[in-house]
């Protein structure tokens, strides 16, 4: 069983594409080989800035011969169809067999595929893989037509075993293919031949190339860590940067340098971001003070002066970059100190948030109104929440955020402090974008929570109103993330918010905002014009200051209470459907519930448990909903819970069947005096006790106690079903018992909708 070594040697592959390319190469080539009758034991791919490499162990030396039978067209089919079939099978008409089928006589082809030498299959499939490689962006060069990420210079492709190596001749234009490669661009000593993967990796190392990206990353991290540690400092961990830097070098040499004292007072995040974005430097922090004091850069070579020249050059570039950052910082502080963050935010009126949702300033106004309303529910002072909302987007107008968009929020915090805001307002500026993902930290400071909720609810409401809901894998405005943000903010803080109210409030605010964005005039003829099919309203878009003509399309049945309405831009824009405010909050709440199910499923709560609780009142209070679901899920895990559920199902099944049969519903009150069996009497008493106990527990929202009260029903219900026949001939007794079953359903229905539960 030979092994296969393939190396595609090119000019520098962008770092961000390397890992994916290694995965793709391995998958595409091994799949293609298997599809063509070869098997293999193991495969591993490697990537450096200049080479993409694959080693396959235990490849079959020949592909197995195969016989395949393929059914063709009927013999009376048009010639074209038969010719097509011959072409696809590579046979002539004489080779075909005629066979009787149900639909008539058809041609059948028997295709014999000879086993082929691995060399031949590999050469062919490597070429095909190269030609169809899924680079995110590929290019041509020179006079060629081949697409590759950057010019491809040579191919090394060998099959090897203990007896030696054989070159696999891969033909791609005039790109040389053989058993040679070269090492480091500057430190290597020219081309060399290799005979196996081990030989290849060892020769590369001798010529200053570490083939394995993980090894390069580990080396960088350990070296950086040790250098920092030796000076009592620590390297700020950054996995993305580490992966990127490992993709920029073949021979990593770690160097640590100083940051000029003049810059040490910049916020650490600014230093870190500037160094990372522009220079791909790691930050080195003084753990005690939290300040970034040094940097680590990774060179691609060793030098006679141990990197002194390289370090000096890097330091100089850093000086220029940080001078820029310092300049932005000081300018921003000057603005903030003279006109405050409200002054800085003034320009937001000229920044479009979305062409159908107005400017950032419009958005800020909505968030402010909403934050004020939400504040009391999360323990924040309404005025503080409104203050924070008013300034939370101001930093989008700062020079620093203009340069480093990823510092949004954080700069807002620094500038808010500089402007004299406090009481949690600066922190709210920083935290109101959170949580950004399922693993991001959830803010807990009340003002932050209020603004963060308002921010997300406004986003959801806005995009819902203009019908930009997420579909399938498309969610360009990250609305699923916003919804999860709302859920995590509420649950993480145990906040008691009736979201339906807030969503309605948000949509009201939004529609109010619409009338501010568009100067809408009364249609000709005043309100009588409303029954016209189309009313053209003219006005101007206050954001772009451009005239904007909006066709207001009123459905004929407007008077029948259907308040759906559509805004139609007369220009190139497609018709814009505005969802009515009343529908909007219902549809959005359903979306939030869907996301909640996904969120809780990840935490091990079954979807039917959530459905059983969603059917209960006040389901827009997510904290209440989840408390109920958690208690129910725990209860169903117990022996009592499981059996009680079975009892419920039994009662419900009988009742539903009988109600259907009789065409009546047994909702009357059962009477204890008709009880015959002691178990029946016991059930009456147990239900009375449970009903009271459950009601008491629910009043204090003690779902665990409600479950315990319910658990007391298990034994009486089991005993009842064992001793009593519900469908007796005595109609009075039957009726009474059916009403008793209904009572089980009602008493338990106080806690959750058990009929929604599975199992």
């Amino acid at each position: 069983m030979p092994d296969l070594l393939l190396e595609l040697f090119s000019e520098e592959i962008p770092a961000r594409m390397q890992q994916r390319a290694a995965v793709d190469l391995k998958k595409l080539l091994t799949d293609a080989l298997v599809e063509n009758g070869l098997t293999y034991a193991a495969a591993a791919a490697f990537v450096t800035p200049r080479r993409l490499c694959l080693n396959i162990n235990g490849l079959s030396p020949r592909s197995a011969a195969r016989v395949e039978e393929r059914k063709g067209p009927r013999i009376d089919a048009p010639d074209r169809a038969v010719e097509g079939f011959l072409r696809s099978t590579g046979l002539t008409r004489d080779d075909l067999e005629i066979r009787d089928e149900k639909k008539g006589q058809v041609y059948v082809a028997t295709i014999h595929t000879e086993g082929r030498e691995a060399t031949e299959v590999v050469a062919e499939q490597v070429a095909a893989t190269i030609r169809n490689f899924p680079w995110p962006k590929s290019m041509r060069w020179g006079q060629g037509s081949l697409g590759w990420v950057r010019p491809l210079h040579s191919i090394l492709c060998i099959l090897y075993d203990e007896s030696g190596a054989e070159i696999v001749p891969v033909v791609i234009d005039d790109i040389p293919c053989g058993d040679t490669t070269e090492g480091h661009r500057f430190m290597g000593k020219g081309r060399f031949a290799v005979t196996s993967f081990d030989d290849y990796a060892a020769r590369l190392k001798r010529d200053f190339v570490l083939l394995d990206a993980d090894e390069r990353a580990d080396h960088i991290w350990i070296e950086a860590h040790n250098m920092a540690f030796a000076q009592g400092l620590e390297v700020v961990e950054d996995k993305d940067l580490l992966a990127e830097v490992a993709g920029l070098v073949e021979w990593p040499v770690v160097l640590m340098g100083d940051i000029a004292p003049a810059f040490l007072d910049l916020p650490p995040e600014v230093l870190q971001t500037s160094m990372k974005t522009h220079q791909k430097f790691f930050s080195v922090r003084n753990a005690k003070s939290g300040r970034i004091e040094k940097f680590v850069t990774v060179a691609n070579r060793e030098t006679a002066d141990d990197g002194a020249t390289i370090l000096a050059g890097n330091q100089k570039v850093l000086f220029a970059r940080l001078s820029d950052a310092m300049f932005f910082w000081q300018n921003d502080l000057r603005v903030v100190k003279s006109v405050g963050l409200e002054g800085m935010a003034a320009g937001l009126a000229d920044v479009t948030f979305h062409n159908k949702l107005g400017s950032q300033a419009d958005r800020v106004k909505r968030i402010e109104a909403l934050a004020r309303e939400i504040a009391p529910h999360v323990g924040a002072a309404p005025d503080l929440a409104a203050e924070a909302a008013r300034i939370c987007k101001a930093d989008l107008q700062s020079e620093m955020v203009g340069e480093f968009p990823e510092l949004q929020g954080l700069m807002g915090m620094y500038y808010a402090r500089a402007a004299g805001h406090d009481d949690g307002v600066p922190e709210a500026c920083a935290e109101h974008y959170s949580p950004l993902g399922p693993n991001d930290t959830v803010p807990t400071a009340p003002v932050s929570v209020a603004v963060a909720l308002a921010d997300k609810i406004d986003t959801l409401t806005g995009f819902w109103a203009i019908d930009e809901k997420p579909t399938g894998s498309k969610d360009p405005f990250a609305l699923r993330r916003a919804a999860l943000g709302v859920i995590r903010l509420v649950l993480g803080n145990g906040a008691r918010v009736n979201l339906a109210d807030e969503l309605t409030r948000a949509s009201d605010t939004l529609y109010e905002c619409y009338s501010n964005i568009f100067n809408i005039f009364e249609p000709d003829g005043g309100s009588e014009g409303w029954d016209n099919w189309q009313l053209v309203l003219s006005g101007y878009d206050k954001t772009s200051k451009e005239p904007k003509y909006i066709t207001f399309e009123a459905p004929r049945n407007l008077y029948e209470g259907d308040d759906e309405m559509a805004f139609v831009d007369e220009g190139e824009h497609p018709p814009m459907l505005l969802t009515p405010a009343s529908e909007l909050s219902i549809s959005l709440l359903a979306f939030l519930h869907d996301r909640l199910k996904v969120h809780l499923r990840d935490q091990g709560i079954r979807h039917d448990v959530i459905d059983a609780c969603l059917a209960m009142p006040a389901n827009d209070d997510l904290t209440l909903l989840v408390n109920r679901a958690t208690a129910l899920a725990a209860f169903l895990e117990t022996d009592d819970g499981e059996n009680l559920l079975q009892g419920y199902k039994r009662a419900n099944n009988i009742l539903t069947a009988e109600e259907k049969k009789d065409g009546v519903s047994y909702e009357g009150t059962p009477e204890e005096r008709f009880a015959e069996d002691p178990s029946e009497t016991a059930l009456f008493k147990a239900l009375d006790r449970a009903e009271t106990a459950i009601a008491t527990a629910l009043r204090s929202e003690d779902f665990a106690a409600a479950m315990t009260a319910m658990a007391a029903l298990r034994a009486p219900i089991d005993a009842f079903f064992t001793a009593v026949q519900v469908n007796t001939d005595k109609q009075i007794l039957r009726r009474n018992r059916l009403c008793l079953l209904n009572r089980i359903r009602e008493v338990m229905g106080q806690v959750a909708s058990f009929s929604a539960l599975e199992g």
Partner: protein
Amino acid sequence: MEFSGKPASFQEVILRLQAYWARNGCAILQPYDMEVGAGTFHPATTLRSLGPAPWAAAYVQPSRRPTDGRYGENPNRLQHYYQYQVLIKPSPPDLQSLYLGSLAAIGIDMDLHDIRFVEDDWESPTLGAWGLGWEVWCDGMEVSQFTYFQQVGGHDCAPVSGELTYGLERLAMYVLGVDHVMDMPFNAPDAPIPLSYGQVFRQAEEEYSRYNFDIADTDNLLKHFEDAETECQSILAQPGDDPKTGKTIVMAQPAYDQCIKASHLFNLLDARGVISVTERQAYIARVRALAKLCADAFVTTSAAGLAE
């Protein structure tokens, strides 16, 4: 001319690049005699990257970026600066080594410095052009742009040209170890009359900064922009057959001059702050439309290698 050791002046860096690329087979052209934003606008790059005819040229191009004016005070920002531009079609297989040779030629010791090719895709919305390549880093500083042209003026480049652009001031400051551009020796420091970059250009930077930001008459600029646009279109609307000579003369290059003019006028308008964000896109699209018309015309000519 023989050079050895480190260069001593800005002009020596330029002279060494000229000598190096001449030695490596490029036609050493002179700057184009119009205001442009970058060396790429020189017809020797834009137009010559189109069509099948082989090409190899190198030249210095004074470039103007009105918005970058800083009155001569910023250590490395200028509204007028020099680019060194190399364009070779088809791109030779050893273009990277050739490029590294040029760094060695200006005194960058490959054994002491860390040269890296870092992904940077190039796109010029005004020229309707894009390519893939890198910015080249020397010890963490961007010293050149290295691009394989894929499309220019909306036309696929076939063959593909390799383009190198050096920001001369920045590169020379690095090689000469100077921190402020105005302090850089322009000619040899031991010349009878030594001149610094500041002595040559500081006053011009100041004058143009004021002019570009505050004085340039925007109504005139707008009018000039429209004139250039109209002129470009009307040149290309002429039939190719010239009645006077009886020859086919497509006037792609005179039309392209007007396109360059429109582009620079747009930059000036931008510096005056009279172009809003939405208008900006529209202006860029207008210049791109001109560039595309010029490219369409140029590919039909013998200079592009088609009509021979």
